[in-house]
């Protein structure tokens, strides 16, 4: 697996660490307990396209949102966390 870092170009996956899915959205502090349980523990766990956090620790140290197919490991794109927040 090679990840195309927007800063560093295509780099091997062992330069990165991942903390997994980028899908869950942090609820408001005042939200229901159910929303919090969902956010912390429940996962869509798709077989297919998945957005996930990768940290380029062995490179520019930027946080990226990588889109990847969990069935084939094909990387479909990578954006910086900041870019990924834009619609």
């Amino acid at each position, binding site marked *: 697996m090679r990840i195309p870092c927007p800063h560093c170009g295509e780099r091997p996956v062992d330069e990165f660490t991942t903390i*997994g*899915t980028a899908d869950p959205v942090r609820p408001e502090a005042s939200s229901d307990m*159910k929303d919090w349980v969902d956010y*912390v*523990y*429940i996962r869509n*766990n798709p077989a297919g396209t998945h957005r996930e956090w990768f940290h380029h620790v062995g490179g520019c140290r930027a946080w990226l949102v990588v889109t990847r197919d969990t069935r084939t490991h094909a990387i479909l794109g990578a954006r910086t966390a900041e870019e990924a927040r834009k619609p």
Partner: protein
Amino acid sequence: MKYSVFSLLRNAFQANRNWKPAWRDMSPRTDHVYDVVIVGGGGHGLSTAHYLAKVHGITNVAVIEKGYVGSGNVGRNTTIIRSNYLLPGNTPFYEWSLKLWEGLEQDINFNAMVSQRGVLNLYHSDAQRDAYARRGNAMRMNGVDSVLLDAAQVRAMVPYLDFDNARFPIRGGLLQPRGGTVRHDAVAWGYARAADSRGVDICQHCEVTGIRIEAGRVLGVETTKGFVRARKVALAAAGNSSRVAAMAGLRLPIETHVLQAFVSEAIKPLVDTVITFGAGHFYISQSDKGGLVFGGDLDGYNSYAQRGSLPLVEHVMEEGMGLMPMLGRLRVVRSWGGVMDMSMDGSPIIDKTPVEGLYLNCGWCYGGFKATPASGWCFAHTIARDEAHALNAAMRLDRFATGHLIDEKGAGPTPNLH
């Protein structure tokens, strides 16, 4: 046919021409209502079928498997069994599993090569020794065997390790003498044959594609061979648990990750126990064919591909070299991956679901092989009686909402670290 030394001799004298298939090759009956349909013909699905039939007398059962029996994790694991757990929700369950392993071959009349060669967890620092002493004590309080060894005792057992490694010196180990290995394929075949002999339909090459629910109650499953009606449906799909649960509208506290394993070329008997490296995550044993069987960590990213990537291969080899430098002289002949149902606290789920008649068995992470007998035992009880057995009472689906997590490692909701 009952397997025995006599059946072996009789068939040998008939030039082995009269052996019968070990179980009937069935398609699910679509003109019929099953009492229970089990989704997934891995170790857990098949053991559930066996104990449903044997312990609860429920034989109107189909096991529906999309591939062939043994194609999932039950045929991909590194075959280690043990019950060296720390937490009350886990220890009695895994110890019961080990007890079932001890009587399994007589129970199912199948040679599964259960070998209690011991499981030795090495420690490399004072802090780790203390943690292992605590675990060993917790085990003994639950009636589980455990022995804390110092470096000299470990050296007498396994002299070929790198004891004086500058970074990871071996200071001792926690030994569970009753742990060991079991021939994994034989477990799947043996349970399939035992369940079949009591009338369970084992249906291979049939994928479940939907779960039909009406007014909150399960009616059956859609499959590639038609709609199969059932009073109860039990999910035991391991790495694909989220996908089958989604067919019933459920979202699970599960992520699917890939774990790899490796086998070396065959050598003379060397490793006569199971050894785990405590300064990383590496475990090794030797199969009866002579190959060294070993593995390490997850690759770390979500995956449904039954293969991993090279950085992890390199990492596992480095750990092996750190423990046992002579490994460098051997060639690795095979490697493969399996997709694991990693739960959010590292412990499994055996429970009812919010859908009436739908039962769930998942979250085995990479320790579900050793659990195969007890998992089937408890799941069968949960399905038959519609309530958990005492041994799986803590393995609830709603524990994440109520805060009753069973987190052996204390790693929090980080499935790739459990």
